[in-house]
Structure formats: C-alpha cells, structure tokens
C-alpha cells in the first residue's frame, strides 16, 4: 500500500475550495443525491423502525462476530466455496495473488470493492504482472486517470463530463471534445465488454454475507459484478469481516435501507445472491479480511463504526465533504465515516480528519445503521488531544479558553476588551495573512453593551 505522509485536511482541500466553480458545483451534485435519499426515506413510513432493526442486528453481529464467521465458513464450505482468512491487507493481497498464480491468470475483471481499494490490491497485482480492469464505470474512469475514487458509491463524482470526455478520447478513442454522458457510457460499454470477455478471473466485493446460509449478496446498478463473476470459471469475493449478517431474512432490512440511503433508489438494479460456485467446473473463493476491524471492535467508543454498510449517505449530506471533495481526506474512505475509521488505523497520520467536521450532526441523522458519527468525531478530537497530537497553536488556545471560561471576572474583562478593540482596531491589523480566520470574513459590529450589563438593567 502507498504510505501517504501526514495530511492536513485544510491544506489538502485548498485547491478544491479555492476553485470558484468546482466547490459549489460539487456541493450541488451531492445535495441532489441527498435530496433523492430524503424522498425515498420519507416514502417508507417504517424508516425509523428499519434503522433501529438494522442497528440492533449489527450490534448483535459484532458482539458475536467470531461465532458468526465460523458459522459462515462452515456453510460456505459446505456449498463448495473456499474460505480464506486474511489478518491484514498484505495477507489479503498474497492470498488473491496465490489464487491467480494457481490458475496462471494474467487478466482479471474487478467490480467495485472499497476493501480491495483499502488493501491496495490493484497496484500490488500490477506490480506482479497482472492486468486489472475495474469495471464499474466510475472506477474505470478514475483508474484510467490514475486517480483514486473520491466517493465510495460515486467514485468519479469529482469529475466534470468534459474531463471524462478527455480521458476517454485519450484511452478509448472517443471523439475529441465529446462530453455527452450517453455517448461516453456507450463507448465504455463496448470497451468493457471486450474486457469482460477476456477476463480470466472475476473479483467482486461483497455487500452482505449471510452466516446462516454461507452465501453473499452483491448489489450493482450496472450489472458489472454479475458479468465479471458469471463469465470466468473463477470468482474471488473479497469482504471485510464486518459485512456479515446472521440470518437470511436480515437481508430484507438492509436491502430496504442500502440503495435508498445511497443513491435514492428503491433498490439497486441487480441484487445478486451467490451460494457456492457456479457449477462443478468453477471455483468460488471468499477472502475474509480483518485489517484492523477486530481492533476497532475492542473500542467501546468507536465499535459502532463497524455497523457501516458503505452507503455513502453521510458523505452526501456532509457540508464539509460536499465543499472540499473526497480527495482532500487522503483516505480510502472519505467523509464522516472515513474520518472516524481512518484515525483508528493511524491516528497520527489522520489526526486532522476529525476536525474536518462542523459537528452539525447531519451524518448521524441520515445513517441507516445509526452510527453516532458526529459523537464519534467529537470523541476522536478528545482522543487526539489525549494522544498529544494536537498542533501547538490549538493546544495553547484551548488552554487559554479553558482559563477564560473558568473565571467570571476574566471572562467579563475579556468581553470588554473585545468590544473596545473591535471599535478601534484598523482593518489592516485584523486582516493579514497571519490571521487565517479573517481571510473570507469581516469582523462583527461590536454590541453597545455586554449581555451581563443588559441583564442587570432589565431583569432585576
């Protein structure tokens, strides 16, 4: 996996936010998806009931995860699948490569999987001489551009159609300047069909795996996972260990929530249920991946983050994500859930992410599995403070604020100083490059008297 340096979210977001067209355009595109989600959620009267069911099911699953995983393994094996266990990303990649080598594979077709993204599977396989084709249209676009997905459901949401047109002109030979989504999609359809037919092994992610049956479900709108898994004789499904649900009937709850929360559709076009390999000439390999999940389970504060079903609703609603773009998080999973998950992997590297949040709580409101996202982000701030990872200026200013708020006299005096100086300070003294707070705002008009003074006069 590429090791990225410590990233500062505000710095990484700068090119995006300072582009006067890009940030409002991106904001609008995601708000459109959020609105579609609202329409769907409000059309299901039992929505809140479904959310609490989903949350209870996930809590019970995570509590007994070891048992459910072995139950899944037993049932999947009985159906003829081969179940592999990977403690971390490296082991996952080695297992996949081993299966590919066993079949002398050079070309694989892959459908969207944030897990393989997390494990850095593509660069690993490419370094080992294997041609990997991402077949989800959005993923293919970012793959051709040597970028990473900027959103977990809408990987190319940060790109304008003209940019996609340029990429396709260069790689697929579409007409120069062509930017019609219909035309571009048709070109991709033709291009990827050849890839599907040439693929020797299909790799998919997993949306839900069922302990009770040993099967799993993959949801797509494009049908790419199905083409990729139905043509070759070998299907490798890679899943995080938290993707399990205990019972077959639990799927009803999650499938009602997933697409409605993700894109505002009542259900995805294809919801495919795989139980064992295709036939006696085929192989199905399931790779169960931990990569930090069991450690997250041990944390009382952040355990609920394992409920996540990767719908992306928290990103679509997040005012910070919408305006700063997914790449500013420099993490496989961006947005609110990514800002909770990333510091659990490396709190020092991702220490700025819990601060890329206005604590508005919208993510918590839309989360279909009731992860208390903004509470967790607040908890991370405290944790990062405890770990002494806060920058010097934040630490000092917090100390000072604490002193100020503890003393009524000091607070009152500071208020007087503030009101007085707002009146007399010249503009150049407050607006300069050292004061980042005043880059885009003016200081307020000072009130004529303090609240304390007003209260003493009027209420006593």
């Amino acid at each position, binding site marked *: 996996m590429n090791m990225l340096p410590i990233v500062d979210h505000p710095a990484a977001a700068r090119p995006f936010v300072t582009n006067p067209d890009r940030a409002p355009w991106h904001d609008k595109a995601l708000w459109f998806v959020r609105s579609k989600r609202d329409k769907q959620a409000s059309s299901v009267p039992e929505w809140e009931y479904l959310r609490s069911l989903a949350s209870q099911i996930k809590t019970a699953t995570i509590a007994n995860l070891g048992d459910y995983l072995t139950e899944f393994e037993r049932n999947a094996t009985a159906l003829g699948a081969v179940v592999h266990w990977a403690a971390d990303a490296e082991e996952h990649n*080695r297992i996949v490569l081993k299966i590919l080598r066993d079949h002398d594979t050079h070309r694989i077709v892959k459908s969207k999987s944030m897990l393989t993204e997390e494990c850095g599977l593509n660069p690993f396989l490419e370094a080992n001489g294997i041609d990997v084709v991402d077949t989800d249209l959005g993923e293919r676009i970012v793959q051709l551009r040597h970028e990473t997905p900027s959103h977990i459901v809408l990987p190319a949401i940060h790109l304008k159609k003209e940019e996609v047109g340029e990429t396709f002109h260069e790689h697929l030979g579409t007409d120069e300047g062509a930017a019609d989504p219909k035309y571009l999609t048709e070109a991709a359809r033709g291009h990827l069909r050849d890839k599907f037919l040439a693929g020797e092994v299909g790799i998919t992610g997993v949306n839900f795996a069922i302990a009770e049956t040993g099967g799993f479900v993959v949801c797509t709108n494009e049908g790419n996972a199905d083409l990729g898994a139905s043509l070759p004789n070998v299907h490798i499904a890679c899943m995080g260990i938290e993707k399990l649900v205990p019972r077959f009937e*639990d799927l009803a709850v999650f499938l009602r929530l997933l697409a409605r929360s993700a894109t505002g559709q009542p*259900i995805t076009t294809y919801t495919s249920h*795989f139980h064992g390999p295709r036939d006696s000439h085929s192989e199905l390999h399931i790779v169960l991946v931990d990569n930090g999940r069991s450690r997250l389970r041990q944390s009382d504060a952040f355990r609920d983050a394992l409920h996540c079903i990767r719908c992306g609703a928290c990103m679509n609603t997040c005012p910070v994500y919408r305006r700063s773009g997914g790449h500013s998080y420099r993490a496989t999973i961006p947005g609110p859930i990514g800002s909770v998950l990333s510091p659990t992997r490396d709190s020092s590297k991702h220490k700025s992410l819990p601060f890329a949040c206005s604590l508005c709580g919208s993510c918590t409101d839309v989360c279909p599995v009731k992860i208390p996202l903004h509470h967790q982000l607040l908890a991370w701030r405290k944790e990062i403070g405890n770990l002494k990872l806060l920058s010097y200026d934040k630490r000092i200013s917090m100390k000072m604020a604490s002193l100020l708020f503890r003393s009524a006299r000091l607070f009152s005096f500071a208020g007087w100083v503030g009101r007085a100086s707002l009146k007399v300070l010249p503009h150049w003294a407050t607006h300069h490059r050292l004061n980042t707070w005043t880059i885009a705002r003016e200081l307020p008009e000072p009130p004529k008297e303090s609240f304390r003074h007003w209260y003493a006069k009027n209420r006593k």
Partner: protein
Amino acid sequence: MTPQLTSQAADTTGRQAILDRLTLRPVRSAGLPTVDASKLTSFEEPLAKFTEMLQSVGGEVHLVDQPDQVTEILNQIEVFSNAQRVVSLVPEAVKGSFDLSKIHDPHDLAAVDWTIAKGEFGVAENGAIWIDGSTLPHRVLLFIAQYLAIVLSRREMVHHMHEGYARLGTPISRFGVFVAGPSKTADIEQSLVLGAHGCRALQVFLTP
C-alpha cells in the same frame, strides 16, 4: 517475485489470529431482533404499486391475458423484430432462435440479442423481480443479452422485501437475483444513462 506459501498454511494462521482477536474482548448485545410485521407498510393494490415502482426505475410493463401475446407485443419493438439471436427460457410465451444445447462456455453467449426469462415473484415496494438461478442454463444470460424480457405472473406479488425473503426461505439455489429495471449508471456527472453493462432495456410481461 512469487511469495512462497501454501494457501492452507496461510489460511490457518490468519484464521486463528482473527478469531483470537475477536474473543479477546467480550462484547454484550441485546440479541437479534424479530421484525414486527404490524409495523410494516403493505399496499392496497400491490400489483399497481409494483407497476408504478418498476416504471420509476426504467422498466416497461405490459399486461397480457395469455402468454402468446408476449411475442405479439415484442414484435412491435424494432430491436426485437430485427434481433438475430433470441434465447427464450419461457417457450410458452416466446419461441427462441438460439439453441442453448450446444453451449458449454458462457463466453459463447456474447452475441445474444435478447433473453426472455421467467420471474418468480415481484416486490411491490421497489419493483424488483426475483429470478431463480436454477431456471437459467447459464446465469450470464441475464446480464450479457443486449435486451431482457421477464415473464411474471401477476398473482405472484409480495408487498415488501421481508415477505420476499420469507417466501424464498432457506436454502435457495446457488444463484438468484432481484432485478429492478434495466442496467444503468449515473457515474458521469450524475446523468442517468440506461444500458451500462447489462441489458439496455427491460420489458416485463405480467401474465394472469
């Protein structure tokens, strides 16, 4: 560089490490909930709701009185009347023009124009149709054909997904899929385009 490992050895170490970590810390939960059916919305006319939802996701719905009307209606669709290779899994409704008996490799189905498949039941809340994989000689038929038609009895309707899974019970076939509309994408600037990798359009015929 080929990592030297046998899959068996690698699996056991990873497996034990993960299971050990998962037992390190006991976590309590209130147990699994049971769905209270009285809290779920059902529809006065599930067929009407199903039709409305299927149309909203891009499917085209036709009510027919008898199976042979399916071919009549399909013949009025240009891409059907011009089609060279039609695979029909519902011979009482449509006569196919592509012989599956000689096909062993699913890649040989790449040129199929139409697949006519049999739906088991429809879900009113979202317009999805359950297709049982055991009715498909090759599961790729549903996804590789340029166009897809599904023949479904209009008596086979469930209100919502809970009823759907109750009806499926366990275990199910090796493969099964809910299909809701034609394949689609909105990955280019959120513009909805029908016909991504799977079928370009979906015709659903509701028989008595």
